């Protein structure tokens, strides 16, 4: 009995630790004052001002654009890289995997400065393109790492069986391998997407005039005090992620049911 209570308290503490900052942030997005310390009554003013603030909206636009593009590109590159690495012999696989680990372990600042130096070296004007390339560069290793385990779990003979039954290699890849490793690909894409959204250091060094993302904009407000519009924006982003999560959960539980039925039909 005591054990049960302790378990509950422990769980509660963990969730309080994780969510207390977000709750405070949401509450203060309705505060009728620019101060973060004092409660001055309820208002929707920051949400209205957020919709009118061109600078923040532009930053949001670039953040989402870069996140969508870079996660799509890096998922594509990373998935095929993983399939290639999986089919290598043991020795070269080990070498390539270790090379793949390096950018993951490397501090962000090193990646940021080296990318900037590279772009300068090839005389590329810093701007949207360089920021996108930088985000693709740091996302690919994570995609590879999330797809590889799925490939290892997959039955090796599935693709061979498909080709025995007359599938071309491309057809086998599309119809057998990719569906098998889909969960890994989706995870990789989501990791790439979130990494891209909250990256500051690499974006800061690799962006040029006129192109900023949210983290740069928020950070640049530090001198004059963070605007509560940011609280409002964070609240909206938190809610949309929450809703997205609920939809995905609901869909995947439906999907798995649907999968069962069709499996039964086949039988």
């Amino acid at each position, binding site marked *: 009995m005591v054990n049960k209570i302790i378990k509950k308290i422990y769980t509660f503490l963990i969730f309080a630790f994780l969510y207390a900052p977000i709750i405070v942030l949401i509450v203060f997005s309705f505060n009728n*004052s620019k101060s*973060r*310390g004092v409660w001055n009554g309820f208002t929707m003013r920051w949400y209205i001002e957020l919709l009118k603030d061109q600078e923040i909206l532009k930053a949001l636009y670039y953040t989402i654009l870069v996140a969508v593009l870079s996660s799509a590109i890096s998922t594509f590159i990373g998935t095929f890289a993983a399939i290639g690495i999986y089919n290598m012999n043991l020795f070269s696989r080990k070498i390539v995997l270790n090379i793949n680990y390096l950018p993951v372990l490397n501090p962000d600042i090193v990646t940021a400065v080296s990318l900037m130096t590279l772009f300068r070296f090839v005389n590329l*004007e*810093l701007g949207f393109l360089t920021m996108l390339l930088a985000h693709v560069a740091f996302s690919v290793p994570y995609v590879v790492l999330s797809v590889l385990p799925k490939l290892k779990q997959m039955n090796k003979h599935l693709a061979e069986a498909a080709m025995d039954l007359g599938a071309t290699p491309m057809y086998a890849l599309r119809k057998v391998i990719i569906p098998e490793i889909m969960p890994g690909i989706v995870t990789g894409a989501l990791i790439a997407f979130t990494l891209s959204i909250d990256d500051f250091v690499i974006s800061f*060094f690799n962006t040029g005039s*006129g192109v900023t993302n949210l983290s740069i*904009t928020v950070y*640049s407000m530090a001198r004059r*005090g963070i605007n509560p519009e940011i609280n409002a924006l964070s609240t909206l982003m938190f809610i949309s992620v929450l809703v997205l999560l609920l939809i995905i959960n609901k869909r995947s539980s439906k999907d798995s049911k649907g999968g069962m039925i069709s499996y039964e039909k086949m039988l």
Partner: protein
Amino acid sequence: MKRCYKTLLLLAIVLIISMVGAGCGQEKPVLNVYNWGDYIDPDVIKDFEEEFNIKVNYSTFTTNEDMYVKLKSGGTSYDVAFPSDYMIEKMIKEDMLLKIDMNNIPNYKNIDDKFKKLDFDPNDEYSVPYMWGTFGIIYNKNVVKDKVDSWNILWDEKYSDQILMLDSQRDSIAVALKKLGYSMNSKDLKELGKAKEELVKQKPLLLAYVGDEVKDMMIGEEAALAVVWSGDAVYMMRENTNLDYVIPKEGSNLWFDNIVIPKTCKNKKDAELFIDFLCRPDIAARNTKYIGYSTPNKEALKELPKKITEDKVAYPSDEEVENCEIFNDPGKFVKEYDRIWTEVKVQ
């Protein structure tokens, strides 16, 4: 497979949107502006774009050092930037700025003469003043009953655990130097050593070394005394009427944020047009109202309400700023500041 097509379609749409966005900008000339976050009235940019049919690409930075790194590394083409005093000196030394042709800036005449020909730009060739201010002590009148007019109050044991200092090496060392009656640009190791001893002595009395959160702590009355910039003091006093601000009689720091044209500029003519626009009295007045800092534009002062211009915090009298100094670029001497600050912090 259907899902795959959907994703592709979505991607294509996103790409098209981004192309359209980029395409629009290419017809008009573009001006790349690099400024502090939240440091201009957004409508001013819109008005400039409409009047001159120029597109403004606006980006922001957090510290002078961030901006310096971006400009120094190249690869970007900022046309206008807003560094502070000591950073301008450093950038002039390193040949990073273009000379501004003052003939193209007729509104330069609106700038008060006392803000021209300052130490960091002695011939007024490289920079045009944008905002200025001081730093001093903000205190809670209900708690601090003594007269506050000297840095010494920050060493008063009566207010132990109620004092906040800035977590910034240059500013905090400057406070100690000024308390001792030295110049805050001192490069004398003996003077700096004494300043260090003062800071070490003060440390047990402090509640904390703080950054931006000082505003919320003072408004929330968690502390009674703090070192802050005048612009922030105006905001804090508006939120909590128990607060008051003084520039200590020993003098303090006088700071400037000026407008410059970096060497990366590709569009000098429009850059000068933009600087001139910012010097117009009505535009400067609007920016001052929005930001809440002090404007060096004497014509703009006439357009601002008395409530702003008669505020002693934002516009101190000449006697009050008499002992104030502008920060110099310490050059390589910055190593000594680093050392002293580390030694104070580890105590």
